């Protein structure tokens, strides 16, 4: 079946094949939503689960994500035309003082793989920039990455700044990065923590879907 094939090629990171198969599936009258969910997102979830178990490593996730983006290039205009909305919107960045973005980029790709729209503010982002972006783009999630034990307090600074700006209730704050722990997330009052990119995407999806119910 073509959707399974899309999933498999995506897992192998074959961007060209994914792109061609998405095109073909559309010609065969598969719904864009099924192509996204049962083809690409399904493939990305398998990669995510394998990453979590150390079965695949950073490069496999990156090339799979690259293949996903190739497929999305074809699919995105059609999804928009047919009124399919992303399941939510997230702002993502590394905190002030932190320049390490490989982890953040992985999380972003995983999010996109789950159908979450991502606005990437880049690295070394000051809380005021995040606040402006929230006001302008009204995201559901704010995702903060910190790789160093010395920069993780920057995640707390953002949460405090959100409170001061009266925006804390409008968004859910998710944090991650090598030195970050669940205990730290609770201590600084974040809404969630994930220990790897795949778990982060699952957590985000769960939060977004529950939010809709409310």
């Amino acid at each position, binding site marked *: 079946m073509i959707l399974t094939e899309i999933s498999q090629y995506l897992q192998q990171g074959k961007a060209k094949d994914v792109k061609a198969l998405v095109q073909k599936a559309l010609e065969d009258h598969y719904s864009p939503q099924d192509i996204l969910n049962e083809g690409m997102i399904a493939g990305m979830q398998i990669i995510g689960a394998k990453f979590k178990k150390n079965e695949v*490593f950073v*490069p496999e996730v990156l090339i799979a994500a690259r293949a996903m983006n190739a497929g999305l290039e074809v699919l995105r205009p059609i999804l928009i035309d047919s009124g399919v909305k992303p399941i939510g919107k997230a702002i993502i960045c590394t905190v002030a003082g932190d320049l390490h973005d490989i982890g953040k980029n992985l999380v972003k790709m995983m999010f996109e793989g789950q159908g979450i729209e991502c606005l990437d503010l880049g690295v070394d982002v000051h809380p005021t920039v995040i606040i402006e972006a929230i006001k302008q783009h009204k995201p559901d999630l704010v995702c903060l990455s910190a790789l*160093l*034990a*010395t920069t993780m307090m*920057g995640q707390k600074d953002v949460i405090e700044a959100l409170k001061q700006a009266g925006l804390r209730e409008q968004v859910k704050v998710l944090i991650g990065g090598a030195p970050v*722990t669940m*205990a730290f997330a609770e201590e600084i009052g974040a809404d969630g923590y994930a220990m790897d990119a795949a778990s982060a995407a699952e957590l985000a999806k769960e939060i977004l879907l529950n939010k809709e119910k409310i």
Partner: protein
Amino acid sequence: MRKVTIKNQNNEKTILVPEGSNLLSVLREHAYVVNATCGGSGRCKKCVVNVNGDPKLSCQTIITEDIVVEFADDRRASKQILMDSSATHYRIAIDIGTTTLAGYLIDLDNGKVVATNSLYNPQISYGADVISRIKHCSLGSLPALHRVIIKVINEMVTDLLPNQRPEHLILSGNTVMLHILMNEDPTSMGRSPYIAPFLSSKEFSGDLLKINAKKVILLPSISSFIGADIVAGCLYIGLLQEKKNVLFIDLGTNGEMVLKANDTYYGTSTAAGPAFEGANIEKGLGGVKGAISAVSYEKTLMIETISGTPEGICGSGLIDIIALLRREQMLDETGLLVTNQESQLVHRLIDDKFYVTDTVYITQKDIREFQLAKSAIVSGIMVLLDQAQIELSSLAQVYIAGGFGFHMNKKSAIAVGLLPVQLEDKIRIVGNSSGLGSVQVANDLSLVGECETIAREVICIDLNKETKFNQYFIDNIYFAL
């Protein structure tokens, strides 16, 4: 208040602490050495002590009752006397490593090193890497970290020279270690733009910091992440006098490197992570007693330890094991452990763990940690070469410094891709070049000027700002086919 009775091989001591105190914090305050690799966040699981007879993570233990704590206050101290000496004047050089301190006693009558000693850096209780140490300093523990380092330096000085005060004590170390030594807040070095409060050399009376030496000389650093240890290393290999293109790498936690190409100096720090020093590796150890330092396999599996029976694996052992797994096709090029029924060693692979002995093994996750570390090193080399616009082939020599480098098997290092294959015949292992460079300074104090020149000449490359670094990093994570 609660009573905490602390027992170890040397003594027994009872202290009173407020109820609700964290056990690791209490042990730190009383200058006990507990291996808290992750800095006390409950993740590395290495700070185990016996509490009332049960093994507990000290960082996760809150004191709510009177307790008896038992552990080996294992500082891995060692001393070697190299020759008899009865000089009237001595100088001492100490390299303050993040993991280990190394001391050298120099007889000024003949300029020879007559004794050496080494000791774990007791700041390990505050985390294995410089970033954890900076964090603890920024949270108010600078005075405590400063105190313990002064204490061990004095212990090492007395151990080397029991009945007199050395004329000069020459100190090298990474920039963060030197700041803590001077009781200077290193907080600004922990975040971009990574500014170091001081970099230049210092000379002061030992009394100033209660150090047991008449005069103390601190060697200069290059940047926040390229310290005086690297400067001393460059001095030791004669970098200033070098005519050809050469590369100097300290294979340790910070993975610093300096390239001299066409008479220009480029330096960087790859933050390879503490995998080479045994942290982040489940059964990892530094280059100390009980550490497996070499593994080879011809019909039978041969294991060498630094000394004693195998308890864990140090960096050189790790690369030997990974090279072996690659050769036996039990590890594919992506870094995945695979069951190869053809290999005689297949029975040692159980539940994604490869058992080197009955109790010492490496895990799939350890291999992933190693892949990140080796890719950081190779990618750092590539970025420096790009900066200098030269190719790997135009390097005449690669000097490998560091304790791990000392035991490293060159063939294994190439096989696992820690160093590019083009460098195979150019590798020269120089040991603790930081300590040895400091010994040179101890013999000729005017060399401090040469150190200043090195520190000034090196152009620092910040890998975080080099977009090509990320690409190289991804490209080099796998093992070569």
